[in-house]
């Protein structure tokens, strides 16, 4: 249409520019029917097409008025033409008229002003198109629409049409109603496609429409769409394109809501499916027979069971089927059964059928008549339920019942069934009979209360209440009375069972625990015995857990821990009793035993308690090995060997003393032997000389020497006697003596000697100083030291002897200090107290004094020490043992 108008406008311009009659033929040949009219609507030019279209071939049209040619032209057209003359740029319209054959003609027109070269409107250029065919199609459509509209009101079929010329889509009321849209809704192609459900539905419709427009293919689809109110519906959408002379004019179609049909169809399909699946997958065999016993239907279960196919069964007689074990025998029976069912009887029995492996299978079989609306039997429903499991279960039940019976009768536990409300005893087993001596004959008059001793009847009330509230009681220990009135202990329990008549029954079990009780007592006694035993062991016994906590201790251990009650020790560990170090060592021992499972046996240990007291133990730790092979604790056994160790130490000391003494003795023996030998050697030598000697003077000299040797020997023997006396007089009793009294006596005895040497004694000893000594020895000792102090005086000064005393724990220490020559102790220290050891040039030094003194002091369990400095003096410290 636009193109045409453009073309017309161009013609107008062209003609404006070249307005010569010679162009007339050009206009004549225009392919579009065109006519030029002047202001008075007289035709100036006309194309041949226009003349043909309007059937003016036989009439001269040039110079004639339009209104003359089209008598019945509408007034509206005239008005339009006038409007164009007045300058309206372009006007279009459709008009109809009847041609000479009285055919109705429709044309579409476009009017544009006809300008001269001065832009003055000199007329109108009219361009027309014959649209009669289109118009007739339109009318046809309209008619169809009306037709559809009528029909649609009944069948709910909506209609629609699309005018491609006007690009206009119109829906009928029903279509709008199906879309749940108001009646004034104006659809277009795009929006109507969008109502379809996204995905398959929308794609399908879009493609269908496209195919219709481009290829002219109609469609008819069942699709889902979502209404304006959001409801999902199924529609049957049909459409077809309308063409005129191969020109696409538009689409027409129908639209039907088939939601209900779709749903109904789905429902029916579902029901069929369900029925079929039930029928076929049912665990039971199902078949439908006619009243004559012919198979109409059989389900898959039945077919699979016997490995048959539909055709093996359908239309065959029921009694001819494969699965009957002895066909001839059952045939007649089955015929009768079918006949009875056909008469309306419901038949049911347990029978045996063969499976595909010819194995007999028990089946619960039934044949049920099916009636029609007129109460007439039309078919029979044959059903078979496999009851193999049921039969087996029944068998099992029978066995277990037998088992229960034998258990009940043979059980060592007594079972009593009684009426809970009345207390009547209804049943009991043989175990009860054995235990109580009651027999079944006694049962009639026996009540539950009768088997409970009077003394514990009050307990009966308690347990009856328990039964009432919980339905069960026990287990607890109780007493039962035998027929002869004696009682025995039982462990009873029970539970309430109701029977079918609503009677409350009480099942009670009673286990004779006399033996158990006896054993318990025995164990208690054994335990007591064991406890007494371990409590009275002179050993510390304890059991520790894995954390070294004590879980059992005996009395000795309890006393050692310083506690009175076992409960005070339980759960405590060594940390609670020992000092840190002892506890740590003990814990390490425990861990070693627990981890290695090797016991510690007889190990000497020293335990220091928190108060610092020290105990020596001979300890054994033995792992307690559990059933899993791992230690779950340990047994400890400790023997206090403190006293033993003390004695051992004393013994060792004694051995030391004796070995020292032994050494001294050997030494003494050597000295004695030496001294005796030296004298005898001299004798032998001198005697030899004497025998050989001729000279009288010399002989006399030798004899003199022999005499001298003899004297020396005697003196030696005296000295030895003195020493031996000390060593042998070990039994001389020690007694306390006042030291100063003894010093005074010695001073008295030596008065002349002291005076002669100008010696002075300074005695700083308190008068009350008492020492525990053998009196004779202290005299000798004092004499010896005082004499020595003077004997070995320094000639440059007068001898001064200082006497002092001090005490320590064990000894009274008596010190004698002189200002004499002193002794080089580095040189002579070892020999100071040796026999015949002399250190000075004094001719009267015999080397025996200090030796004897030392022996005497040691005989009194004392000791002596010396310190000295040459040229200054010597101090002897004598340790007198205060104790023994």
């Amino acid at each position, binding site marked *: 249409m636009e193109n045409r108008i453009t073309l017309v406008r161009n013609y107008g311009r062209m003609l404006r520019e070249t307005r010569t009659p010679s162009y007339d033929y050009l206009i004549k040949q225009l392919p579009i029917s065109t006519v030029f009219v002047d202001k008075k609507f007289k035709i100036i030019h006309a194309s041949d097409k226009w003349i043909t279209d309007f059937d003016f071939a036989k009439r001269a049209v040039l110079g004639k008025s339009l209104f003359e040619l089209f008598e019945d032209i509408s007034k509206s057209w005239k008005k339009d033409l006038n409007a164009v003359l007045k300058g309206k740029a372009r006007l279009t319209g459709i008009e109809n008229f009847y041609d000479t054959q009285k055919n109705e003609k429709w044309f579409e027109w476009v009017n544009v002003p006809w300008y001269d070269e001065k832009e003055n409107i000199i007329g109108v250029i009219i361009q027309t198109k014959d649209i009669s065919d289109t118009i007739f199609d339109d009318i046809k459509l309209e008619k169809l629409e009306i037709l559809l509209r009528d029909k649609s009101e009944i069948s709910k079929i909506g209609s629609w049409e699309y005018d491609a010329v006007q690009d206009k889509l119109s829906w009928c009321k029903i279509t709008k109603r199906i879309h749940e849209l108001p009646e004034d809704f104006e659809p277009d192609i795009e929006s109507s496609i969008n109502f379809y459900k996204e995905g398959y539905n929308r794609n399908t419709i879009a493609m269908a429409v496209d195919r219709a427009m481009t290829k002219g293919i109609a469609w008819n689809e069942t699709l889902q769409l979502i209404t304006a109110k959001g409801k999902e519906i199924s529609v049957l959408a049909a459409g077809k394109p309308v063409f005129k002379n191969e020109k696409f004019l538009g689409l027409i179609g129908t639209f039907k809501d088939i939601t209900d049909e779709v749903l109904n169809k789905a429902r029916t399909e579902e029901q069929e499916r369900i029925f079929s699946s039930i029928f076929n997958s049912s665990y039971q065999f199902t078949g439908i027979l006619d009243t004559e016993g012919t198979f109409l239907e059989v389900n898959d279960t039945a077919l699979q069971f016997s490995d048959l196919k539909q055709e093996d069964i359908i239309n065959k007689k029921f009694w001819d089927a494969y699965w009957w074990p002895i066909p001839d025998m059952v045939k007649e029976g089955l015929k009768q059964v079918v006949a009875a069912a056909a008469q309306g009887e419901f038949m049911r029995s347990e029978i045996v059928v063969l499976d595909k492996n010819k194995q007999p299978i028990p089946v619960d079989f039934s044949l049920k008549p099916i009636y029609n609306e007129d109460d007439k039997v039309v078919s029979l429903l044959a059903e078979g339920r496999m009851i193999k499991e049921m039969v087996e279960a029944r068998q099992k039940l029978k066995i277990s019942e037998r088992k229960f019976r034998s258990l009940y009768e043979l059980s060592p536990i007594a079972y009593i069934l009684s009426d809970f409300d009345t207390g009547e005893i209804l049943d009991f087993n043989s175990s009860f009979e054995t235990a109580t001596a009651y027999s079944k004959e006694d049962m009639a008059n026996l009540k539950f209360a009768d088997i409970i001793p009077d003394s514990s009847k009050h307990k009966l009330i308690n347990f009856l209440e328990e039964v009432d509230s919980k339905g069960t009681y026990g287990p607890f220990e109780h007493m039962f009375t035998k027929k002869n009135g004696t009682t025995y202990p039982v462990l009873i329990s029970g539970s309430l069972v109701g029977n079918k008549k609503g009677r409350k029954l009480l099942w009670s079990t009673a286990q004779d625990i006399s033996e158990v009780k006896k054993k318990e007592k025995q164990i208690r006694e054994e335990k007591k015995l064991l406890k007494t035993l371990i409590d009275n062991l002179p050993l510390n016994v304890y059991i520790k857990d894995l954390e070294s906590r004590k879980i059992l201790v005996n009395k000795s251990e309890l006393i050692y821990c310083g506690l009175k009650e076992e409960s005070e020790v339980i759960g405590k560990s060594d940390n609670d009793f020992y000092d840190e170090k002892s506890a740590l060592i003990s814990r390490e021992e425990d861990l070693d035993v627990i981890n290695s499972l090797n016991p510690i046996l007889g190990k000497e240990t020293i335990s220091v308690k928190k108060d610092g007291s020290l105990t020596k133990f001979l300890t054994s730790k033995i792992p307690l090995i559990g059933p899993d092979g791992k230690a779950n604790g340990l047994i400890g056994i400790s023997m206090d060997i403190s006293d033993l160790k003390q004695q051992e130490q004393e013994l060792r000391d004694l051995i030391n003393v004796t070995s020292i003494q032994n050494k001294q003795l050997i030494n003494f023996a*050597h000295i004695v*032997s*030496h001294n005796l030998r030296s004298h005898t050697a001299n004798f032998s030598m001198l005697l030899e000389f004497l025998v050989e000697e001729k000279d009288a003077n010399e002989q006399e000299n030798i004899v003199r020497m022999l005499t001298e040797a003899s004297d020396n020997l005697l003196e030696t023997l005296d000295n030895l006697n003195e020493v031996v006396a000390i060593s042998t007089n070990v039994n001389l009793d020690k007694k306390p003596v006042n030291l100063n009294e003894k010093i005074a006596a010695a001073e008295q005895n030596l008065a002349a000697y002291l005076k002669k040497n100008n010696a002075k004694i300074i005695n700083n000893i308190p008068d009350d100083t008492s020492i525990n000594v053998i009196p004779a020895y202290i005299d000798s000792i004092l004499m010896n030291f005082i004499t020595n102090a003077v004997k070995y005086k320094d000639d440059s000064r007068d001898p001064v002897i200082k006497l002092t005393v001090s005490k320590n724990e064990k000894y009274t220490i008596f010190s004698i200090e002189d200002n004499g020559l002193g002794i080089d102790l580095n040189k002579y220290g070892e020999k100071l107290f040796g026999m015949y050891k002399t250190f000075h040039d004094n001719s009267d030094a015999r080397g025996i004094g200090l030796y004897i003194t030392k022996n005497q002091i040691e005989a009194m369990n004392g000791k002596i020490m010396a310190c000295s400095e040459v040229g200054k003096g010597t101090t002897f410290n004598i340790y007198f043992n205060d104790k023994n």
Partner: protein
Amino acid sequence: MTKIKSIAIIDDDPITVFGIKRMLSTLNVSENINSYVNGKEAIDDFKSIIKNNEEIPEVIFLDINMPIMDGWQFLEEFITLPIAHKIRINILTSSIDPADRENWQYYMTRTHHIIDYKNKPIQKKEIEEITKAA
């Protein structure tokens, strides 16, 4: 038999000294016999002999049990003296203490001098054997 220049007897027992001297005189081995009553006297004298560049006795008779300085103490000092030639030392004791014999063994290993050990009483014959210059 060459005579020994000098002999020393160290013993606190005058009878023993007498006896040895007598036996030596009958053997006539030396004109020069000196005696000391303990080790200290002897060692002091020996030191002065060395100081005066005189001759140390070639043979020494040594007692063990002596006051002030016994035989072992003497030996201890003697082996330190600068005496190049060997001296014969005869220990002469009445001790039968094994400790003394052990001491002898010990000193033998510590010196180049010859040390002999004899129990009293000593026989003239033994004196003759052991009175030879080393």
